[in-house]
């Protein structure tokens, strides 16, 4: 069993902690986990270090004779050991003129020390079960404003809260700065104005774009210019008397370059297609503006609402599969956002109409465009050039567009009770007869109570809000205008921005029903509780286990659970790495933006499917299905999947896909955008599938200089990692797992040979390459051997317990809003036990956590 390996062989962990001890009130030293360097390594000190670092000599003020072997004793001790670890890792110690530590001693020493160091850091930073009050993180803030006011605010000026460590729900790491306070005020004001002030978006209309109006003359003119330049260049070169300028050319060099117009055939080919008289064929050009783009009319700041785009199009059957999709984007350059993709499959003689919906947010001005699928880099231009050199024309086009039209805006109505109420009271007819301040007080109190998630505002606070209102009124503002300021203040005050859980004098009281409702809904929706939840809390029924269970099920079944899935899974599996490297478009022709982004969706959609279909968590290790859409099915070569929605698709026995290990997202994260990485993949499997995380990569380890400039296969790199004890101590565990995934290239596609490009590239193509046979055999840390990827996947899928444990620990950290601590071992055990009863069905983990005492205790 790999379960909790770290704790098994190094930590002296006495599991006697009862719930009260778990909160660290009265735990004696004997109950605490410890990080201890095994006594046997004292021999290493005595043999290699004490000549200089004994208590008497203390060279460099380092005394290894009296150092405590309990690394986690206190921070100074941990720091002393961190320096020892670093000095040996970097090769600084022992010094060059002293006896080197034998490889066996060094490997054993470093292995224990680096693992103990991780444990020590955990012990020393452990908050002892305390849940620090949470500020709404950026996602939650946006969702909360949306739930209250009905519009999604622009939060790009707020910190993203995912930076410091772990999950973005960790209260202690959610800081607050003065700039933020002003940002909250401004954002609230803007959102309130949009919600409350009368707005008149333009009436819905339909605009049709006939792309041939732009592109046929554009390309015809380009062809003409090319033909003319070529003619002049050839005329100049055919004579000797007149200078280049007489032919409108710069010099002979230019003339020679221009005599053959290599891109003219692409233009001619385009213009010769009869269908370009009535539509546009989507091609890739180098100097005529890149992709053929259908530009829809600009959507203005005031024209918010739902738009429907319809495109009449047909596909060219001979094109590569990926070019049979339309890509919908907004914006330009690095600010471009990809909105989605739609497949076109109708033949030219019978085009189809594809539809795409887009919600335009108020206050934004942007233009939507439709074009072929794109790469992150110059890949498409390079591919066009490579194709042109081969076929004389360019990349064969995939789609013809007859026309595109956009209809809208249609109003989007989100249920936002606070706003409905505001609008209602402001529209009341008898307003004039009411006392102004009394009216304001009532409105503000009701709004603040909603904003504070059913907690009444303090009367001193309310007094001040009313003062603000009155001051605005004396300035001649209307009632509505005068309310905007104080309403914004409500949305920038601590009762709104923090999840306040009141404790009074008790150290760990139970949450009130209202507080429980808040914790529950932010856990599963990243949003405030809805009316049902609040009314159950009001009547004191929510803490009833059966009611709580049925409410949990209701929340899990609501579409808002998507925020949990994305928020949690993205951070749990460290998926930000998928965006960290650029994939070369020439090397990975089919792994374009569409494939990469759909690969990310696949992971989220798979977890959704597990939740919806009540499937066991182990389906993430191995499954006889994948959750894909047409685009990703195309990428995986799975036939018969039509439509852009993700759905569960059965795969045959022996399929590469099915489970996270074979997913493009996970495999691509295990690369640097060029080469697959044994280390990244192996370490990811250890961290997230086997719950046996290796210590973090130590900084400052010198590169193996012997290897500089050599081109090595993954297998050889793995072997090199065994040469030096500094490397071997971790890599002997990591690399052998990575070997099993070597048949997947950096983009997650199967390969039989490892091909490594070296030196320069021309049009993105490596000028020299080296190939290696792939040996995908290896072993897991527990010693289970495997011969290939399939056996690796089987071996890992047998570690369901470890995987579930890792998932549980992450779920606790995310749900309770603090790092998983030593005091949480019992809770994790309890959740595991409970989930096991239902065969590890994924939602049972969530139920068990929510039903636990810790989840319902401050």
């Amino acid at each position: 069993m790999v379960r909790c390996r770290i704790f098994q062989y190094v930590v002296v962990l006495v599991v006697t902690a009862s719930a009260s001890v778990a909160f660290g009130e009265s735990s004696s030293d004997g109950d605490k986990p410890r990080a201890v360097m095994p006594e046997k390594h004292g021999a290493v000190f005595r043999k290699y270090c004490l000549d200089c670092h004994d208590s008497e000599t203390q060279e460099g003020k380092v005394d290894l004779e009296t150092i405590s072997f309990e690394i986690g004793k206190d921070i100074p001790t941990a720091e002393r050991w961190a320096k020892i670890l670093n000095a040996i890792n970097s090769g600084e110690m022992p010094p060059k003129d002293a006896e080197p530590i034998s490889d066996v001693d060094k490997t054993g020493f470093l292995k224990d020390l680096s693992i103990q160091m991780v444990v020590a850091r955990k012990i020393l930073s452990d908050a002892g079960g305390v849940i620090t009050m949470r500020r709404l993180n950026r996602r939650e803030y946006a969702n909360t404003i949306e739930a209250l006011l009905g519009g999604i605010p622009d939060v790009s000026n707020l910190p993203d809260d995912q930076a410091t460590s772990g999950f973005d729900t960790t209260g202690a790491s959610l800081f607050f700065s003065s700039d933020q306070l002003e940002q909250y005020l401004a954002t609230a004001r803007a959102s309130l104005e949009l919600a409350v002030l009368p707005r008149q978006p333009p009436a819905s209309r339909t605009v049709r774009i006939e792309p041939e109006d732009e592109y046929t003359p554009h390309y015809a003119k380009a062809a003409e210019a090319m033909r003319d330049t070529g003619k002049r260049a050839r005329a100049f070169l055919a004579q000797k008397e007149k200078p280049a300028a007489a032919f409108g050319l710069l010099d002979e060099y230019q003339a020679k370059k221009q005599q053959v117009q290599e891109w003219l055939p692409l233009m001619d080919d385009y213009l010769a297609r009869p269908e370009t008289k009535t539509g546009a064929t989507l091609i890739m050009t180098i100097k005529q503006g890149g992709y053929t783009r259908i530009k829809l009319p600009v959507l203005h700041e005031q024209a918010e609402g739902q738009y429907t785009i319809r495109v009449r199009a047909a596909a060219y059957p001979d094109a590569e599969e990926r070019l049979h999709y339309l890509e919908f984007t907004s914006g330009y350059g690095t600010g471009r956002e990809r909105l989605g993709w739609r497949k076109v499959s109708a033949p030219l003689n019978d085009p189809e109409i594809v539809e795409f919906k887009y919600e335009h947010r108020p206050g934004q001005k942007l233009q939507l465009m439709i074009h072929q699928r794109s790469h992150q880099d110059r890949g498409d231009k390079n591919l066009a050039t490579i194709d042109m050199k081969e076929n004389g024309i360019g990349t064969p086009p995939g789609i013809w567009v007859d026309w595109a039209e956009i209809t809208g805006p249609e109003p989007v109505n989100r249920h936002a009770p606070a706003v409905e109420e505001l609008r209602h009271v402001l529209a009341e007819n008898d307003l004039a007869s009411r006392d102004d301040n009394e009216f304001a007080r009532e409105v503000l109190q009701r709004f603040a109570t909603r904003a504070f998630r059913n907690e009444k505002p303090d009367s001193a606070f309310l007094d001040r809000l009313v003062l603000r209102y009155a001051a605005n009124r004396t300035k001649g503002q209307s009632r509505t205008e005068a309310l905007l300021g104080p309403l914004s203040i409500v949305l920038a005050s601590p009762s709104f921005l923090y999840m306040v859980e009141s404790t009074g004098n008790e150290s760990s009281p139970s949450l009130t029903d209202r507080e429980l409702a808040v914790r529950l809904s932010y856990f599963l929706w990243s949003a405030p509780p809805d009316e049902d939840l609040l009314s159950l809390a009001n009547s004191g029924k929510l803490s009833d286990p059966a009611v709580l269970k049925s409410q949990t099920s209701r929340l899990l079944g609501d579409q808002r659970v998507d925020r949990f899935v994305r928020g949690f899974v993205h951070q749990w599996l460290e998926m930000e790495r998928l965006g960290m490297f650029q994939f070369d478009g020439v090397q990975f022709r089919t792994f374009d933006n569409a494939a990469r982004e759909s690969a990310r969706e696949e992971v989220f959609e798979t977890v959704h499917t597990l939740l919806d279909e009540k499937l066991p968590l182990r389906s993430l290790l191995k499954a006889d299905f994948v959750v894909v859409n047409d685009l990703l099915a195309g990428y995986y070569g799975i036939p018969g999947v039509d439509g852009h929605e993700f759905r569960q698709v059965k795969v045959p026995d022996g399929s590469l896909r099915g489970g996270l290990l074979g997913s493009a997202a996970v495999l691509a994260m295990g690369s640097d955008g060029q080469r697959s990485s044994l280390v990244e993949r192996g370490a990811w499997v250890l961290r997230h599938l086997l719950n046996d995380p290796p210590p973090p990569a130590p900084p400052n380890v010198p590169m193996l200089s012997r290897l500089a400039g050599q081109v090595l296969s993954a297998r050889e790199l793995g072997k090199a990692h065994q040469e030096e004890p500094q490397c071997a101590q971790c890599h002997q565990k990591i690399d052998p797992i990575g070997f099993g995934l070597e048949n997947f290239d950096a983009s997650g596609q199967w390969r039989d040979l490892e091909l490594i490009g070296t030196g320069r590239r021309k049009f993105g193509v490596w000028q020299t390459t080296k190939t290696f046979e792939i040996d995908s055999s290896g072993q897991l840390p527990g010693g289970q051997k495997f011969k290939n990827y399939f056996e690796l996947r089987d071996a890992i899928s047998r570690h369901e317990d470890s995987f579930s444990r890792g998932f549980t620990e992450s779920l606790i950290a995310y749900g309770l809003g603090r790092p998983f601590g030593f005091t949480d071992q019992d809770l994790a055990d309890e959740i595991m036990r409970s989930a096991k009863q239902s065969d590890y069905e994924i939602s049972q983990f969530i139920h068990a956590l929510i039903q636990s005492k810790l989840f319902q205790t401050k």
Partner: protein
Amino acid sequence: MNHSMNSAVARRAFLASSSALITLPFLESLRPGSTASAAIKTATAAPKRMVFLGMGFGVTADRWYPDVNTVGEDYQIPDILKPLNRHKKDLTFIQNLMHQYSADGHSGSTFWLTGANRYGVPGQSFHNTVSVDQVAAEVLGEQTRFTSIQLAASGEAGASGDGHGPGLSLAWNRSGKPVAALNTPVAAFHRLFSNDKTPLAERQARLQEQRSVLDTVLADAKSVNRKLNKTDNQKLDEYFESVREIEVRLAKEEKWLSVEKKLPADPVNEPGESLEGYEEIRVMYDLMVAAMQVDATRVFTYRMPVNSLIASLGATMTAHSMSHYSEGERRDVSQSRDTAHAKLLAEFIDKLKASKEPDGSSLFDNCSITLGTNLSSVHSLTNCPTLVTGGGAGIKHGRHLVMSDKKTPLCNLWLSLLQGSGIAADSFGDSTEVIRELFSV
């Protein structure tokens, strides 16, 4: 020295009071042309300035540092930094500086100016301390409209995508919390130079209103405070502290309310909205020069873009890809980024040298500029790339210093710069001593 000691004391006293009771400022005291200040002006030397420029991901390590065997004046500026050749006598490369506690191979900026131990506080998994610029600003920023100015590029990939790590800028306040930055040249321009055209009375009323907004949220904060336990109240302190910071800023704004923002003699134009990468850095440098010319502030930090910088140089990879360079394209991009920084810095120096102070010295003579990052290359945290220039801290330039101790605290440099700039600090972070070699040949 005496002067800054006094002002530090004055500020502390002022902060302690935290009310709106403020001594009247010298307003124009250091400004040329003001009659009331003529006497002070002649007696006062040009003010000291400090600039910190953070590069995020590390440099092309084997080509960026001068040869360690050539120290002192007998060294060559590395080929990839050739644009700096013309300023060779005015700059100093320092090798073997590092932070002993750094352990994160992706954070080039989080602890760069602080030297803090992330795990330094029991029970917390993230901890930081005040940054050197903020310590300097407490003294240098007293008599300027802005105590300090933080600039930070806001790329699509965010600070972590640029190798800067957690934080909102290079700056961290006295409580070790991130200090926010101006994210675009156009925002910096308006903050520094745009004059509010609304009448004074109206602006005063607006300040007053901002104060009442703060009073209002405080009323709620106090009611929350009563409900919480100790830990949560410590968390809520961040909120109270933010309110106090705004109050201090408003108090300062009030002092300056009737003073128009000065425009530099060579006017700067409003930068375009979409400046990115190379041009963005150049314009930020221009804005810093202009801000120094009108003495708007004396302390600057700039967390520079990396992704958009390399994109503007024609690269199509991410900054993180670049940072893991090997022979070939990635190394080319990494080197071109290093050269671009050298070129931009050289131009920055040109402009500072060309800009004269009333006493005849140049801005360059009176400011210290540090270019660097906490990451040397890839995931290495030793030998942090460090280039210091400018006459403000009294460094004897024109040399390549290789510290004999490979683990010389980077905070020793920060302490040296503080003291060299006339700030009475005995220590900073984990500093052990001043780097004496900087000040003597």
